[in-house]
């Protein structure tokens, strides 16, 4: 029934380990699979397996639409049993895909200093945003990426990122490349070079990293959008399982699957 949305069946084309524990899954989807905005996600569930029971929310890293079929790539990290099952999927295996879901990153007009801050696997939803911003940015706008990882060998997709970004500055926890320390430490040092009225920031990474960003930007009127994650069940806003604590008038919790996963940095209560 074309009238109603439904699960789409994805067929795995490839599933490669790019760096330790980090995989790139490519799958074919029916042509009817809608185009996703950067920052939107899909709920992925391996077909014909009892575990994992619930789908996992994963960002769309690459999307290509051809005649008669669609292809998406998902960059993910193995963090537990569920993602461990994804790592075992092979060419020909099938997955159920619900989506695209959620609110993606929003363009902010009139900003010519565009900053992206990625921590670890946080690069996954930012990479499609980088490509979109490169196409659509105002003339003369700069795209500066700050990308941190635990070690140099865990940095992913640098080649493509270098082509799209004006500058890339790297941070590694162990100092194996670039700045030694968290990416927020690296960014903090450059912050004074960004005039607040010309700058917009997009960030994604561990909760601690985003909390640090909120501290760094506390007194600065720089718009900053972040993509967060939370365990999910329904993915469509019905079950209220995936909430994050939010500030301001109205309800204290917002749904990561419906109002998010992209939020304004200062919409969220960072604990």
């Amino acid at each position: 029934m074309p009238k109603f949305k439904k699960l789409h069946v994805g067929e795995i084309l490839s599933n490669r380990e790019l760096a330790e524990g980090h995989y790139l899954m490519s799958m074919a989807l029916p042509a009817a699979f809608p185009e996703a905005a950067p920052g939107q996600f899909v709920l992925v569930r391996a077909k014909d397996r009892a575990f994992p029971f619930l789908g996992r929310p994963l960002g769309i890293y690459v999307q290509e639409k051809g005649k008669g079929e669609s292809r998406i790539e998902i960059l993910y990290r193995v963090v537990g049993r569920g993602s461990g099952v994804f790592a075992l999927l092979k060419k020909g295996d099938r997955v159920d895909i619900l989506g695209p879901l959620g609110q993606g990153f929003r363009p902010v007009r009139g900003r010519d200093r565009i900053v992206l801050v990625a921590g670890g696997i946080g690069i996954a939803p930012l990479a499609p945003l980088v490509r979109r911003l490169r196409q659509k940015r105002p003339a003369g706008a700069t795209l500066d990426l700050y990308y941190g990882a635990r070690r140099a060998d865990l940095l992913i997709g640098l080649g493509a990122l270098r082509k799209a970004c004006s500058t890339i500055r790297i941070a590694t926890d162990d100092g194996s490349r670039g700045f030694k320390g968290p990416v927020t430490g690296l960014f903090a040092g450059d912050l004074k070079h960004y005039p607040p009225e010309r700058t917009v920031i997009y960030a994604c990474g561990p909760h601690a990293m985003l909390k640090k960003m909120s501290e760094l930007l506390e007194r600065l009127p720089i718009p900053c959008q972040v993509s967060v994650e939370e365990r999910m069940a329904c993915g469509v806003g019905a079950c209220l399982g995936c909430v994050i604590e939010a500030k301001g008038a109205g309800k204290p919790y917002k749904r990561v699957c419906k109002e998010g996963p992209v939020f304004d940095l200062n919409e969220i209560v960072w604990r």
Partner: protein
Amino acid sequence: MSRIKPRMEVSIGKLKLQNPVMTASGTFGYGEEYAPYVDLNRLGAVIVKGISLEPRAGNPPPRIMETEGGMLNAIGLENVGVSVFIREKLPFLRNCSFPVIVNIFGESLDEYKRVAEILGQAKGVHALEVNISCPNVEKGGLVFGCDPDLCYEMTRAIKTVTDLPVIVKLTPNVTDIAALAVCCEAGGADAVSLINTLKGMSVDIEKRVPHLNRVTGGLSGPVVKPVALRMVWEVVKKVSIPVIGIGGIMTAEDALAFLIVGARAVQVGTANFINPRATMDILKGIEAYLIRHGMRDVNDIIGSLKESVE
């Protein structure tokens, strides 16, 4: 073999449902969230997320955790409160063709009565489902649904403030669920629905903390089906009012098992998270089964369990 579509209508007291497939409270929001996925007007009924007198924010995250064959939830009964529900959520539901059944709860008998009374007067509400798995804060947190006297009192009290059909939703976290169902029937319940979730827990062994912020939560999904089915079977034997089956129903086969042991209708909950069109698949599957077995009416299968293999 006749390919005539079987009759799917069932009645729950005064309530007439076009088919026995309903959605469970808390899994389908206020209806709108799944509207892009499912033709809502094909459902037997939608049971709306539990409503209380005042809005409730719900629990801090993490609120859910997957288990083998299911999940735990500690949502905390987040809801917009009865006034906002009537003003903002009911209008959409009024335009739907199925009966709107509102799940209600409170922290005291008075609160339950108050919500029931307000909803009884609201246009577009066809029945109430009473969640008695809540702790009674006036009696030191004793769960209403675990006490036979409270079950009886609660049901009777609600029946005095509204003419709407009253379905009491029972908790399985008791020694003898059928005894509690009998109390609800004595109090005037038009039907009972069971089971609500089973109380459970999960632990992160690396961080050595519970996975849920509130430590314990309700278990749902395929893993609970055998318990739910057994409890429905037990209750059907002890009450004359209709019994609605809930618990791990993912497929038509699951739903049919509940109908066969005597459930008049079923509720589909967690399955919606795995397949948003689960209710439609279940409906189609029940019809196909009836056709395959030459049955003209879904009521022919309700309670048709043969208890002996002889």
